[in-house]
């Protein structure tokens, strides 16, 4: 009976885990989000397994199917790695320059926006309504891309 090339299988599955664990898990903590350490470590392990699988499949006694399978697994693993690197280091840096954004020392423009209870809220209100029963010392405006 043919023995399963477990290195290739494990390497392939681990590369899936290494890729998908970034958006679904490691994005939650700044330390693993700002630089994908955890995912790169998982990818390193996956690539070692994939290489071992390739080495095993390319021994002279192995058939063509085994060679094709292990090559495919290794290619898909590399593709997953390329996808993660592209998402984090290329598209993640496609941000507008925003040269006109308020600088340190400048006054920010006022605004009136709607809160989650459909009430209009002005910046002036945010700057004067008490925080912790005292006048606020400051407001942290956090602009973000939205829920979706």
């Amino acid at each position, binding site marked *: 009976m043919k023995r399963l090339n477990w290195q290739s299988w494990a390497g392939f599955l681990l590369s899936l885990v290494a890729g998908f664990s970034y958006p679904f898990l490691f994005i939650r903590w700044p330390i693993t989000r700002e630089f994908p350490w955890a995912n790169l470590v998982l990818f390193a392990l996956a690539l070692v397994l994939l290489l071992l699988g390739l080495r095993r499949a390319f021994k002279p006694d192995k058939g063509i199917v085994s060679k094709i399978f292990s090559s495919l697994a290794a290619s898909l693993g590399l593709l997953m790695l390329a996808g993660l690197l592209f998402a984090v280091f290329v598209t993640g840096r496609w*941000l507008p320059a925003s040269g006109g954004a308020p600088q340190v020392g400048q006054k*920010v423009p006022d605004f009136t926006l709607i809160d989650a209870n459909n009430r209009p809220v002005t910046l002036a209100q945010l700057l004067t309504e008490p925080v912790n029963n005292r006048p606020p010392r400051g407001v942290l405006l956090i602009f973000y891309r*939205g829920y979706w």
Partner: protein
Amino acid sequence: MRGVENSLQALSEAGIRPVAISVDTPEVNREMMHEAAGYTFTFLSDPQLEAIRRYDLVHAGQGENGADVARPAEFLIDSSGTVRWRMMTENLYARARPEQVLEAAKALP
């Protein structure tokens, strides 16, 4: 954002009011951010990008169905409305951490 929620106590003691702003509607903020995700600080809606445009933070075409959204950015402003600290990230995955904000808040009057 989660970091801010987890640091609300410390921010409040420092007299800092965090406010999140996006193009999302009040309904989305209520249902997704407050009810589903459990955020308790203020979320404001800017679906017409009025403030987002005034702050030059428009990221064109990056939202749902190619809609314009805000790029991530954080501003710590003092009670006179002056920017005392800001983070204009160049990396979508790197945002202001509460400890940076609390550090910057020490210099507020």
